[in-house]
């Protein structure tokens, strides 16, 4: 019972953070709302028994990715958002569209699974299990991930480095 109460509380907190993210006009306020969303999602993962994913959510998303977002906001020097006619039209069509879309997803989920639920901890979630699966069943995807990460490193440095200092022969 307390499990359900905590789940619903953090689900509501997550949704409130997401709505606040959209409503806020200053990018920094939106970014801080996103931290709330990430944090409450981490608690939801924890309640579902996905301990490792919860830790990753906090360390990578609420930590590193948010630092990246804030740096991008600083970099662009983004100020207050100005409401335009275009965004009002988007709101007019976007909100009904979103409602229809989420209702559709919900209907499909209920239709397919009915009232079946998964007990907390029934699915692999502990770091020990993840480690075993990652290094046995999903070995190739794991190694491919390192290539993906390598591409991310190179892409960032190529995109963000200045053409003048790009010679590669610069000594100290």
């Amino acid at each position: 019972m307390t499990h359900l109460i905590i789940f619903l509380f953090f689900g509501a907190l997550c949704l409130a953070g997401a709505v606040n993210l959209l409503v806020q006009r200053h990018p920094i306020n939106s970014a801080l709302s996103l931290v709330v969303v990430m944090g409450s999602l981490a608690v939801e993962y924890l309640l579902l028994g996905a301990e490792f994913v919860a830790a990753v959510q906090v360390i990578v998303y609420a930590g590193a990715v948010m630092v990246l977002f804030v740096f991008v906001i600083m970099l662009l020097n983004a100020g207050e958002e100005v409401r335009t006619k275009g965004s009002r039209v988007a709101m007019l069509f976007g909100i009904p569209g979103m409602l229809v879309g989420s209702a559709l997803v919900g209907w499909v989920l209920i239709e397919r699974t009915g009232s079946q639920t998964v007990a907390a901890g029934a699915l692999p979630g502990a770091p020990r299990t993840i480690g075993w699966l990652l290094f046995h069943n999903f070995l190739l995807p794991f190694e491919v991930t390192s290539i993906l990460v390598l591409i991310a490193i190179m892409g960032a440095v190529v995109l963000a480095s200045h053409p003048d200092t790009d010679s590669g022969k610069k000594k100290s």
Partner: protein
Amino acid sequence: MPQNYVPIFIFIAFIGILIPVTLLAAKLVRPDNPSKSKLMPYECGIDPVDSSRGRYTVRYYIVAILFVVFDVETIFLFPWAVQFKALGVFGLIEMLIFLLILVVGYIWIWKKGALEWV
């Protein structure tokens, strides 16, 4: 199991209560007498010349994205480390290949001079 995390929840809840209470207590106790020069941003006694909301250099972006990348790398080390004994030499070789590919990237950015803050 979520039950093991109850101490952490209690800890977070305690902090969540402690911070507002401390700030509120400080607000009630301290003398409140603001003036224009007191509210000015303090910069080693020098009057501020410009708004601090300028554009920042792109180097911060490089630092941030490299932090994300190597953070993800460390995340992958953790499930390997808890299963180290069970995985044995095979797992060690796996992880060394993974690390080797990333070290190549690290050496590349080092040579490229992206780590230098000119």
